[in-house]
């Protein structure tokens, strides 16, 4: 076994985590600003269609991640972890910065969405290479019996990246007027990335290669063809498949449900005001993040499998009750109105009347509804343009608790996963072998979750299903159940390296 300097491991953790956090930040600001981006780059008169367009691009960003895993994973097993994850960092930073520089559709036409799509794909490729490198790099520095604990710091970066992205957006919004943010302010979070990436690059540059890889290289034990060894040999391929179907697939959907579906659900199904959702989610993430480290540490004591499977089981059993409670907590049709105000505005040029209604409910909830009436047309019912609900302080904390529980499930499945994957594969092909199942599970099964679940909800709504809002949960429930069964039956506790 390679001797590791435990004192220096914090330096390794800091350098790796900071870069990975920034990559997640870069990746998430696109998703967090999806609604704004859709109006700037995707031409459509229908906001839902524009939003779905962005989700599709979001999914495209996820779908290419496995290809990044293959490309950079191979490179990492051939030339080393350090240089590979420095390359992914620069690629990600450059792509993010450039997204913030692209002129809108109104200025350069279809070139705008095309460039956004290309840069989004580059982001996906970079992220595909980053995670496996960081997790492998930290695990190969850590003492074997503490891998769960040390790699769990890397696991916090995904949630912390989302948290930072939400905070940067919130701060930018609060510093600018709504009009300024909509015109140019949304670009600021993209531009900030380049500074963070540069700092992280300087830190990573000073780090040395992982001791296990350096030893393997010195002894001539590195792989000549990591792709062939990883996926062309039956013995290793069966573990790649087991890692995917028995762990990362379920982990991916639990993760994306807890963080992204919860956010989409509150914004688009429950109609909670966007910045309030960001705050709620931010608090839940902040309170939940330490549990990544706790469950990583616990996995060193009682094993990775038990914790990950328990997380999936709880998610499968509790998602529907949790989402039903969330929906009912904010559902204004169950509440009593105590005060109503309304203001009307007439667009004389278009002869359209816009009325804004404010409803105050007995529990402190406030709803704002904007209704438009086309005065050119006779016998046309007024159309509701938007509904926005501001949750009462009491219900706000209840919602935070319900999201926090979901984040807790995320920490259970995600906290130990890096150590679990690292221990499944040998040093010579570790980067390649662990990256692919991780990114297929998270990028494809998890990344497609918002699009598939939105589709299921819309479908159920069109068919008049009274519980349409819960239908989107079938996708994570079925996928996590399948992964749970496979994990319980096929996974063992052996370390294979």
């Amino acid at each position, binding site marked *: 076994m390679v001797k590791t300097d435990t004192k220096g491991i914090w330096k390794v953790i800091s350098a790796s985590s900071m870069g990975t956090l920034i990559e997640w930040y870069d990746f998430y600001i696109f998703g967090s600003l999806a609604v704004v981006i859709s109006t700037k780059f995707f031409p459509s008169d229908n906001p839902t*269609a524009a939003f779905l*367009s962005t989700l599709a691009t979001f*999914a495209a960003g996820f*779908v290419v991640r496995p290809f990044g895993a293959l490309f950079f994973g191979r490179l990492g097993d051939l030339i080393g972890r350090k240089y590979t994850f420095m390359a992914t960092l620069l690629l990600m930073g450059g792509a993010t910065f450039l997204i913030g520089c692209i002129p809108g559709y109104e200025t350069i036409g279809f070139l705008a969405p095309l460039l956004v799509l290309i840069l989004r794909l580059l982001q996906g490729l970079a992220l595909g290479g980053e995670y496996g490198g960081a997790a492998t790099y930290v695990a190969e520095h850590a003492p074997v019996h503490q891998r769960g604990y040390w790699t769990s710091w890397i696991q916090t970066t995904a949630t912390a990246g989302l948290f930072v992205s939400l905070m940067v957006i919130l701060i930018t919004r609060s510093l600018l007027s709504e009009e300024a943010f909509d015109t140019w302010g949304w670009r600021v979070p993209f531009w900030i990335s380049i500074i963070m990436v540069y700092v992280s690059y300087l830190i990573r540059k000073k780090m040395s290669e992982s001791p296990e890889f350096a030893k393997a290289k010195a002894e001539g034990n590195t792989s000549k063809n990591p792709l062939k060894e990883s996926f062309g040999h039956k013995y290793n391929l069966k573990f790649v498949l087991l890692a*995917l179907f028995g762990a990362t697939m379920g982990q991916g959907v639990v993760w994306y449900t807890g963080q992204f579906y919860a956010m989409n659900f509150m914004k688009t199904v429950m109609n909670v005001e966007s910045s309030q959702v960001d705050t709620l989610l931010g608090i839940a993430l902040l309170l939940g993040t330490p549990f990544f480290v706790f469950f990583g540490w616990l996995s060193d004591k009682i094993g990775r499998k038990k914790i990950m499977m328990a997380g999936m089981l709880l998610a499968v059993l509790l998602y529907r009750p949790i989402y039903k409670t969330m929906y009912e907590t904010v559902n204004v049709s169950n509440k009593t109105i105590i005060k109503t105000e309304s203001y009307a505005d007439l667009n004389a040029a278009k002869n359209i009347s816009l009325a804004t209604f404010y409803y105050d409910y007995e529990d402190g909830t406030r709803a704002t509804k904007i209704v438009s009436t086309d005065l050119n047309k006779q016998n046309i019912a007024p159309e509701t343009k938007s509904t926005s609900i501001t949750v009462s302080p009491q219900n706000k904390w209840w919602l935070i608790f319900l999201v926090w529980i979901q984040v807790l499930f995320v920490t259970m499945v995600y906290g130990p996963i890096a150590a679990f994957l690292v221990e499944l594969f040998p040093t010579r092909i570790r980067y390649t072998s662990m990256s692919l199942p991780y990114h297929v599970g998270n990028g494809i099964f998890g990344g497609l979750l918002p*699009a598939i679940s939105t589709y299921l909800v819309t479908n159920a709504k069109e068919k008049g299903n009274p519980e349409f809002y819960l239908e989107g949960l079938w996708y994570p429930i079925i996928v996590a159940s399948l992964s749970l069964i496979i994990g319980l039956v096929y996974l*063992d506790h052996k370390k294979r390296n």
Partner: protein
Amino acid sequence: MNLLKRLLGVLWLLLSVAAAYFCIMDFGLPKLNSGKQDDLVFGIIILFILTPLIVSGLAIFGYFALNGEYDKNKM
């Protein structure tokens, strides 16, 4: 446990066929044929990325399980 692992291998093989049917008929083709641009992207991703991965991955996994590759002595 080895017997259970092998028997479940049949289930994974059948599930891969069911997943192929569901992904193509319920998700992929209706989306491709809807005529909407957004649906087209979604349909392409489902049909050409998600479906082959689930179907081939589950089928190979089931085949390995059925042939005892995940038996205790081979792990």
